[in-house]
């Protein structure tokens, strides 16, 4: 049971800019088979804030969070210590089980212990959580959307873990002066709202955000319901393959994730057919971390040449 206390955070609809980040989170909700989102970027760009806000909006609570110093018993499950010391063996579910059919969030994922990374890799690749420790022997099907945030200055991800993420977002600080100002206003407004609430008063800022979040959640849930009603034409499927080939995407998941993400994007927009525009919107998200070098630990970058190549492939027959 995931019981997070009531902690007021910035409403998702008050998150300014970061459109790619928000799109990736929304697509991963609409189509969980996309396989999770890695958010990599500069310090202070609101990565963690956006993830928590998204979870608050969609699930009504903070995401199940795996901190970087988590011990194995809390990750895969163990025993309730207080019961154990009273002579009763009562299992305590771990974070991976808590996150089943939901979102598992790892902040600073590139700082995670190798041992815990291995556990996550096992579960995400097999879909089965195997608990064989401290006298427990269980296997449970487990499926969650893995969302990780990281600052690449502190090191990259192991290629095996990088590959588990369906989508990857490179986050940079806003360059638009107006947007920077708006970011600042929103955060200061949240501070003010929290101050008012601490004095027993209400905050219009927070209330309006919650209301907007509610509307957006309804749209997202509708998009998720309609996902399989969205048509993926054969020519779009061919373009997915062509795009993956043009970027020399390693492995076999690139075109698959691209197709899923494009479909989710169409559903998100209320469309019933995937078009070239949807592919263009999601190509970078689905493919940038699958190129040669990325999976071997080199810095991931999507260049203007990549953009141009994408347009050329999409424009060709």
């Amino acid at each position, binding site marked *: 049971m995931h*019981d*997070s*206390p009531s*902690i007021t*955070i910035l409403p998702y609809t008050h998150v300014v800019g970061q459109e790619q980040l928000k799109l990736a989170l929304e697509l991963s909700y609409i189509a969980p088979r996309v396989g999770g989102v890695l958010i990599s970027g500069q*310090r*202070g*760009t*609101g990565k*963690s*804030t956006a993830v*928590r806000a998204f979870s608050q909006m969609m699930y009504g609570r*903070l995401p199940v*969070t*795996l*901190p*970087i*110093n*988590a*011990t194995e*018993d*809390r*990750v895969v499950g*163990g*025993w*309730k*210590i*207080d019961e*154990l*010391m*009273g*002579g009763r*063996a009562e299992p*305590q579910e771990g*974070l991976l089980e808590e996150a089943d059919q939901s979102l598992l969030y790892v*902040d*600073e994922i*590139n*700082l995670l*212990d190798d041992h815990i990374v291995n556990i996550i890799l096992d579960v995400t690749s097999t879909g089965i959580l195997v608990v064989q420790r*401290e006298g427990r022997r269980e296997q449970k099907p487990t499926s969650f959307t893995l969302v990780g945030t990281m*600052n690449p*200055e*502190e*090191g990259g991800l192991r290629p095996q873990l990088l590959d588990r993420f369906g989508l990857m977002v490179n986050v940079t*600080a*806003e*360059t638009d*002066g107006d947007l*920077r*100002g708006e*970011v*600042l*206003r929103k*955060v*200061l407004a949240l*501070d*003010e709202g929290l*101050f*008012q609430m601490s004095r027993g008063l209400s905050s219009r800022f927070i209330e309006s955000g919650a209301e907007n979040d509610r509307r957006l959640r309804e749209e997202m849930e509708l998009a998720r319901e309609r996902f399989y009603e969205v048509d993926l034409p054969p020519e779009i499927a061919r373009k997915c393959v062509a795009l993956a080939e043009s970027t020399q995407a390693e492995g076999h998941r690139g075109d698959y994730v691209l197709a899923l993400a494009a479909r989710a994007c169409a559903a998100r927009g209320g469309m019933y057919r995937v078009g070239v525009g949807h592919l263009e919107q999601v190509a970078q998200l689905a493919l940038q971390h699958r190129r040669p070098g990325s999976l071997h630990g080199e810095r991931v970058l999507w260049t203007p040449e990549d953009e141009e190549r994408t347009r050329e492939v999409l424009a060709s027959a």
Partner: protein
Amino acid sequence: MPDVGVSSYSPLVRGLACAALDPGLRSILVFDIAPAELQRVSRRLSLMLSLTTGHPASEVTLSSNSTDDELWGIEPADGRQLSFLGISRRGLLSPLDDDRAVQVVVVHDLARLSLAAARACLMLAGAEAAHLERHGQHRIWRPHICWLAACPSEDVGRISPHLLDRFALRLRPDSDVTRPARAEWLLAEVSDEASAADAEHIALPHELVQQLSRASKVSRTQSEAALTRVLRLTGAETYHPRRTLALARLARACARLDHDSREVTLRHVEEAARLIGLKPLHGGAAEDLPTPEPPRDAPQEAEQDWPPRFEQPDEATGRAEASAPKFTEVQRQEEIYDSGAPQEFALSPIDVTPYPEDVVPPQREAASLRFPSTRQKADGTARGPVLGVRKAHSLHDLALVSTLLEAAKYQVIRRLHSAEERPGMLLSPADLRSYRRAPVPDQMLLLVLDYTCLHDLDWQTALLPHLSWAYVERANITVVQVGAAGRAEDLRAEKISADSILAPPIWAAFERVRGRATPLAHGLELALFALRHGLQHGRGSLSRARLLVVSDGRGNVPLEGSHAGRVKGAVGREGIEDALEVARQIRSLGRVDALLLNPQPRLYPDLPPALAEALGATLETIPRAAGGEN
């Protein structure tokens, strides 16, 4: 007893007051502050936080050997179950019973904070929510922590910028304490049994108490002009979102302390910038700024006995009279902070910038916040500092207390299912825990580079095999620079050390050029001390060292001259003989594989072989660089 010599308006105190008001500022980094003074600052801060939050504030201190278990504890939420062991296993950072109480977490030297504590700071500082998932513990809470860390400015390169970015408020100790004020403080110190220097006896000035009490009940909105100024002050070219937000919050806190103001104005932004040491940009054309607000009169303080404010003492009486507070609002026209075009800050001196990490070269390894790889030559000894504990796979280096605590969880169940009564604890191999230690190099590469003989030589190629060896062996590396240009003291050699060949200062050493003198004897002496320390000192002693000397043996500074910093008269062969003497001492150490790279000098070609013999070193020649001559 009120705090002597503390002005309500000193930048440091003002900054602390702002942090006490605004949760977004409760990650404070103070540069170049003495440990004793940091304790006093911590105490003041705790008092302020108690005042503004209405809840008690406690203090904890993190250190260079804080481990995850110490920080987070290992007991379940209610904390009772391990009491039978007589051990308190609540962590330093575990959530408090009173979820509104504030903790002041003190770090005396951020550059030397343990890896576990640094990672904890990364997780908690500025976080909306904290998550504890360790050893059966499952807690989620909003942290009410105020981080107070100190760091010498010159060491900031040792800290990850990712961690530094978490510190919103950058302050420095007050540098404007007048001599009379200091003298008055001394008089109070030596005459009062309850020493004012004792952090326990610190109290806040009455006026500050009043200010904080008033300010904690009010809020202030930002004027658009103030917001725009904040955005411009924190740069267009080098935009750091957290810095912008911190300055905006600081300005807002200043406005809250300003009883007469109803909103955050340009004046408050100015004040905030001054508090953290942000300087105005230089040059550029004036822009169409809003009309500067009229300067305020200096605040009139209610007369009070304590603390007094002092002018220079009267010459006749030697006594100083109380006067107006020495911090006054600046009575001047508003300075120009920006031009029409984006410009970078002129902040090269590290002692005038709140963000020295932008100018100090990195002195840390890459990915410094990760637990180090365990790939290490196994030498059968447990030598590195403890980072944590892990499940043991052998009986080597067991963590006994952690093992017992692990076993404690199962005692009742084991006894229920045990056929016989047995005294003591029932242990199982699964209970065993061993220490997880930081890798410690067991070999050293020591280079003595005589820059005055390196011209026209391909010496860097000659070093490559040895550098490769150091990388593979994870050896630590020391470079002794003899006769390098750009040093203030030509007569002395300089030593730099690093845990790895990849450290930036090591590579910078290979770029140096020749200087004016050759203090070879001093350089070899530094090498001797480094070898002795590495081979003979403490538990971390090395198994073996590789010494590489690149020199023509022509030391022209006697050892005494290097020690004294000056040379008297002609030196003759004194510098050479001193170098040979130190070399013989190195030879006597043992466990040193020495090699001398001979630059094949035309003058005195017998010196390099003589030096090699004194060192007990193998002699190799350095090839000429293509097209070079000696």
